[in-house]
């Protein structure tokens, strides 16, 4: 069976799987960005309870494996009467796991904003909320976006794991087709290529564009 025959027969199924993969990617990226901003800022709080909560959360999710968390959300939570759909469990597990890594990036970003900016805001008598919202947060984006971009590419790869909790994504379809046809090289090779194309030609250029945009916002693009 030639590769083209394989593609014309199984290509549409794989593309359907790719759509699910992209859906998981988008949903969990939104979740992880929100979580990292919240927990990253909580981590910098002076209140020991808030800071402790954030530290515990971050250490817990960074200390255990994503796969374990994923299975925990999908197979163990029903024991507590909370049954999540496979897609939801996947998005929540990935979002919370990467949120923990992202929180550390946000923390680093806030700490990297020059001290004079804090002092300037203080001298101008800004309230703490206004100082964060108007001065500090806009400036952290150019700092955190490059590491966050790496993390997002990692996230794309991590979405493959949701296939193991029965989400019908690209990996799941590839496995399925493999078990029917036993054309392993074609199935998994195509899947690898699709992931590569998504990352190299869509995700990474988009993230670079965001980086340029963020740098332009604070007038740092003319380097």
């Amino acid at each position: 069976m030639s590769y083209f025959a394989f593609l014309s027969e199984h290509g549409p199924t794989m593309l359907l799987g790719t759509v699910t993969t992209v859906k998981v990617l988008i949903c969990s990226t939104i979740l992880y960005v929100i979580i990292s901003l919240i927990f990253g800022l909580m981590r910098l709080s002076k209140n020991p309870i808030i800071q402790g909560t954030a530290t515990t959360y971050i250490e817990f999710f960074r200390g255990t494996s994503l796969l374990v968390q994923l299975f925990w959300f999908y197979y163990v939570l029903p024991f507590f009467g909370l049954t999540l759909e496979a897609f939801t469990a996947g998005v929540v597990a990935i979002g919370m796991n990467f949120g923990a890594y992202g929180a550390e990036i946000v923390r680093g970003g806030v700490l990297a904003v020059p001290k004079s900016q804090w002092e300037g805001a203080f001298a101008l008598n800004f309230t703490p909320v206004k100082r964060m919202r108007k001065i500090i947060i806009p400036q952290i984006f150019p700092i955190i976006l490059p590491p966050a971009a790496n993390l997002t590419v990692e996230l794309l790869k991590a979405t493959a794991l949701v296939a193991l909790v029965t989400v019908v994504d690209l990996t799941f379809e590839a496995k399925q087709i493999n078990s029917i046809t036993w054309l392993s090289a074609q199935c998994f090779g195509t899947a690898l290529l699709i992931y590569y194309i998504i990352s190299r030609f869509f995700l990474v250029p988009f993230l670079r564009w965001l980086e340029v945009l963020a740098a332009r916002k604070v007038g740092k693009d003319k380097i």
Partner: protein
Amino acid sequence: MNAEWRWDFAIEILPQMLLATLNTILAAGIGYAIATIVGLLFLLGQRTPSKIINMFIREIVEFIRSTPLLIQLFFVYFVLPQFGITLSAWVCGMITIGLHFGTYLSEVYRGALEGVPKTQWEACRALNFSSVYTYRKIVLPQAFPIAIPGMGNYLVGIFKDTPLLSTIGVAELFHAATAVGGYHYRYLEPYTIVGLIFLTLSIPAAIWIRKIEKNVNLAQGKIKKEQL
């Protein structure tokens, strides 16, 4: 099914889980050892005199870095037998992890080499040191502390990615938990114990790496004792 945590069941399966933990540690150790060497090869492959080879290796590294480890595992495990190479799940897993994380480690090495100031290279050139001597005595001792945080993080990273090996049937911790859970139809305790074992191993490892990082920086005179 009820939500109650059963201590007797947890204690009953604990020895089995701890035994499987040894396999996980072994897998992470072997995988890391392969990755450090593969990383070096990838680095050298990108520093050859030929531009075409450099670009080719660079693209391979990019490809491996931007595709999921899970599918790579399936690829190696299912495709190699089609070419008449039948390897055990263990060997396949180790090769794949070694290759996958080797690409990451090559980036760490590259960053470390580029982190050594250019003046150091120039001074070696001026003093007419041989390139072996330059690397051994001047560059590598300075590149090493830069590489340590990255290398340490990927050691923990490999450790946390070993559960993926269970998908091709390597009998490590996660595999054991799934087997035990399936046998008794109780997943609460096995998966929770797996999580706890991972926590108890990876958090001290992370702290330990941070300590080594500080010690090396201290020995290099990059920071002073008062700064700790």
